[in-house]
């Protein structure tokens, strides 16, 4: 077991280092801005006094390194400073929204993960049949469509033509859980369509790869019935690839959510990021980027750790 813990600890350490490096990138990229940040934010017509005030507020008079450590210290305590545009604290802008985004992503994942894994396994077992080929074409098409294309098609049919679900996923206080699910059904469905396609293809590839191993042929030649070959011989070795597939696709969801939120005007962190980018509200942009990157790294980390924990060769060392 010592081996495994060592590997996991090493992987966690590496994740932390990468996160630190990324925080450096996110922070210092803003420093690369040509000219003075405060001037750039305020634009041509800024008076000198305004610029001075803003510099003061953003702490631009301190050296960059000092500001980085201040920022990082704040970030660890979830305090990202104040928005330049609205003067509110960044957390008050994105805190609520981050919860909403997590809700939407979870909603989509809860539908997509079991659905896609099951379909992926089925398609792998039926490989090279007509169903496999049709599934291949359908998933390829789904992967190839931009999220906003799928989103608008769903709006056109489900909301404009058939009036089944609302086109705009606005949230208000005091909504019941069912209302919430109904309101956010279309954005969730859009995400499900894209992620399911990705996940199905990856699951199929992983299972087919697995079924080609000599020990599966050996099991067949031992007269083991097909269902038992899958359950007893393939599945215990399939966890690592499947966990990997799930984690990678959840990470994908995190990015996909930005476009979907804009299409459905959903009050999530993705929309906040897009707004902040167009208004050049750097503290908010930095905070959003750091949160997205951290989630992404965490999921990739989970995939690797999962693969380590389910590897029989590592679980039972020599």
């Amino acid at each position, binding site marked *: 077991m010592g081996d495994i813990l060592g590997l996991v600890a090493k992987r966690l350490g590496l994740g932390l280092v*990468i*996160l630190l*490096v*990324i925080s450096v*990138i*996110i922070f210092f*990229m*803003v420093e*690369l*801005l040509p000219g003075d940040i405060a001037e750039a934010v305020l634009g041509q017509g800024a008076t000198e006094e305004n610029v001075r005030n803003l510099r003061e507020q953003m702490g631009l008079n301190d050296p960059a390194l000092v500001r980085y450590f201040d920022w990082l210290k704040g970030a660890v305590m979830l305090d990202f400073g104040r928005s330049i545009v609205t003067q509110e604290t960044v957390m008050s802008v994105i805190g609520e929204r981050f919860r909403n985004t997590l809700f939407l992503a979870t909603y989509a994942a809860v539908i997509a993960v079991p659905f896609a894994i099951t379909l992926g396994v089925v398609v792998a077992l039926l490989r090279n*049949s*007509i*169903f496999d080929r*049709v599934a*291949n*074409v359908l998933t*390829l*098409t789904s*992967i*190839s*469509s*931009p*999220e*906003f*294309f799928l989103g*608008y*098609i769903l*709006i*056109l049919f489900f909301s*404009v*033509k058939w009036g089944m679900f609302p*086109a705009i996923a606005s949230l208000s206080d005091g909504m019941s859980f069912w209302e919430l699910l109904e309101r956010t059904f279309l954005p969730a469905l859009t995400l499900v369509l894209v992620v399911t396609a990705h996940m199905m293809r990856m699951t199929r590839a992983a299972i087919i790869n697995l079924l080609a191993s000599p020990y599966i042929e050996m099991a067949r030649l031992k007269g083991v019935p097909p269902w038992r070959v899958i359950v007893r011989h393939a599945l215990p070795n399939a966890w690592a690839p499947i966990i990997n597939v799930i984690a990678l696709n959840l*990470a994908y969801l*995190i*990015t996909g959510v*930005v*476009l979907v939120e*804009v299409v459905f005007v959903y009050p999530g962190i993705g929309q906040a*990021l*897009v707004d*902040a*980018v*167009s208004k*050049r509200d*750097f503290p908010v*942009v930095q905070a*959003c*980027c750091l949160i*997205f*990157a951290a989630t*992404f*790294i965490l999921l*990739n980390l989970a995939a690797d750790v999962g693969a380590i924990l389910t590897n029989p060769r590592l679980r039972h060392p020599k």
Partner: protein
Amino acid sequence: MSIFVIAYYSLLLIASCLAAFYNQRSAFLLVFSLTLVSFIVGIIGGADALKFIAAIAAAIALAAMVSYAFREFVIIIVSNEMAKELRTAPLTAAFGMFVIFTYAIAGIFAPWIAPFGEAEVIASAFAPADENMLLGADQLGRDMFSRLIYGTRNSVGLALTATLLAFFVGAFLGLLAATKGGFLDNFLGRVADVIMSIPSLIFALLMLSIFGPSMPVIIIAVSIIYAPRVFRLTRAVAGDVVVMDYIEAAKLRGEGTWYLIRREILPNSTAPLVAEFGLEFCFVFLLVAGLSFLGLGIQPPTADWGSMVRENATLISFGEITPLIPAAAIALLTVGVNFVVDWMLHRSSGLKE
């Protein structure tokens, strides 16, 4: 029950019987499961739903015929060896080639095909389609069709440039890392790890917020994001080649790095690299389209598919499909490229077995 519904089911049943009779197992399975699905859909959605299915089936049949004819056409005009390979191409791949071909024509000859200028205002805002305007006017009264054609140039051109840049940088570094090994290999690998740990869209937004949305910034930002992915793949592909004994033989002969890359490694890596180029193009194209859709891509008045969707999005709530057309144009090209790539990957994996 209308004549349409009766004809619809009889056609399906006749087709399934014929397929069964001639032992076309997969065709039978396909047609018969379609029949069963139609029963259910027909009960729920009525004749309209069946018409919808029929329309889709007709569209697919049309696409299949176009692809078939296009494949035969290409087989005739190319050399013998190419023709032999093309004969093994499935219809989906042929369809993909046809789409790419069409887009290339539209992009290259845009000024001659488009009836109006890119930014020419010719009608009132959101004017409906007439004999002058195939697809009606956009929110400023410009011809949608003309903008769509010009958009091929701008959207595809931008994505292609960015992909090429990312590809050359990534592939070159990947080959170098695989050949040289050691510190350089490790260092580049770590850098790629870090860049790939930031979700691509987020990283692009970060860079655009700082440097502002302009063509060169988009191209460079996208190359920075995708070069590590190309690097990873090239490194892996070249890594498989580098361990071959013929590379060792060349090294022991005293050949330089450049000779090794050019004469020994590259010829054995082209097939996966070409497929990877197609895949990367799809990713880049979708990313750039996403940025444009968010209003952070190519800036107006230049015609661009992503921005066209955004600008005309309000029409959706009136049940108009106009904003879907540029989105569909994006999807169609990506699907086409993916189909071709899928065939190429299948072929190269088939060779290994």
